[in-house]
């Protein structure tokens, strides 16, 4: 019998990551961080609404000219969209699969129940479902304008004001932004832990950052519908 002089080839990188709980969690953390990065940029852009219609619409127009003249009008957005879509889909699939596994691993509840996890930690799954539904609504509302009755293509500022002049537009938006804040509060620190990027020493600072960022994002996003309701933006 010949001696094996070489070890077998290991299974493919993507396959072994996808099969492992730690690997799947890594995919969640990376896709979550990507979405978080996008949301921060999105918030910064949205706050332009406070400088008036011309500023805001000008910003929206500029977004379509990024990368010119190499990129054609609007191409930059079309490069970003598949990446974001992939992030949302991967994040959702891994969240679903890991959650099912977690439930199966603990089929018996304790008779003596205690509530100890923080609200943000407990609501990651339902918060994620709310966010998924919101993403669909949000695109139909302000991108494709399907559900926005008084919307006109090419007038983002006016469309935004129209959406926030409806009670349901405000309710959906504000609920989702509270969910985003809670999700980020647990998610940011969680992603650092999943990627092994935190240290015992930086942990406290990281948690403070997560809380601060969550608060800024929720308040920042909500300030827009509130201002429309108060007539500060119209």
């Amino acid at each position, binding site marked *: 019998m010949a001696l094996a002089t070489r070890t077998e080839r*290991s299974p493919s990188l993507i396959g072994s990551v996808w099969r492992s709980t730690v690997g799947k969690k890594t995919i969640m953390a990376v896709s979550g961080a990507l979405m978080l990065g996008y949301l921060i940029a999105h918030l910064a852009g949205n706050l332009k609404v406070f400088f008036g219609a011309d500023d805001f619409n000008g910003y929206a127009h500029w977004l379509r000219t990024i990368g010119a003249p190499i990129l054609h009008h609007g191409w930059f957005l079309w490069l970003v969209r598949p990446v974001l879509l992939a992030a949302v889909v991967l994040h959702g699939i891994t969240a679903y699969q890991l959650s099912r596994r977690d439930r199966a691993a603990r089929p018996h509840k304790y*008779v*003596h129940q205690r509530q100890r996890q923080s609200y943000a930690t407990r609501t990651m799954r339902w918060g994620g479902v709310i966010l998924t539904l919101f993403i669909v609504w949000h695109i139909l509302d302000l991108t494709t304008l399907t559900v926005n009755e008084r919307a006109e293509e090419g007038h983002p500022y006016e469309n935004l004001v129209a959406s926030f002049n409806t009670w349901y537009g405000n309710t959906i938006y504000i609920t989702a932004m509270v969910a985003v804040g809670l999700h980020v509060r647990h998610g940011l620190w969680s992603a650092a832990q999943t*990627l092994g990027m935190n240290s015992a020493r930086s942990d406290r600072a990281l948690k403070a950052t997560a809380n601060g960022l969550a608060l800024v994002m929720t308040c920042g996003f909500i300030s827009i519908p509130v201002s429309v309701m108060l007539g500060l933006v119209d």
Partner: protein
Amino acid sequence: MRLTLRIWRQHGPDEPGVMTTYEVDGISEDMSFLEMLDHLNEELILGGDEPVAFDHDCREGICGACGMVINGQAHGPERTTTCQLHMRHFTDGDTIDIEPWRASAFPVIKDLVVDRSAFDRIVGSGGFISAPTGSAPEAHATPVPKAVADLAFENAECIGCGACVAACPNGSAMLFTSAKVVHLNVLPQGGPERESRVLDMIDTMDAEGFGGCTNTGECATACPKGIPLHSIATMNREYLRATIKGGQRRNS
């Protein structure tokens, strides 16, 4: 003191179980929790009943055999093992709920005894180092910096009791596995298997049906030995490093 105990009774692995109520009297506050159960069992035996089965061995907090969920907390209200928990932490007239570790990877064998051999299989898949047998090597041949030795020791304190799995809402063994991985991976002696160890142990952990980590932190709060939550982050980093390096598994 006088106590009301509500204990999970289950005759065998495939039998249904129920919470059963017992009254015990004459409990001294100097008794350990296990001595309190011994006291109950003596009375049960005298009355011709089946005693409550529970695991125990050293009764000094070092073997990890004992373990039960007391009032919804793994090992009860103090940060120690059940054998080192004393009745002075309860008051006369209390009702105490006692349940076995709950996780599909830890099936109940009888009453409060669960099968924790999944932990042995995780350790068997990588929780060792390859050392030549024979005479012991010269101690100073492999220098280990103090900080590294301390980190390894902090993780080596894990006694494998399973409280982390019992406390985790996902029945996850991440804290246990990470303590074993970090203990050996930070030491030079663990270097040759650094990649295969973390890959194989996580594979086995998953195959045994434990859940994943949602960074809830219940495990580290329950751990009687104070294994830090941060060990999980270190194991995750070791996993990513091994994966990116294309580390080989031994067990595939």
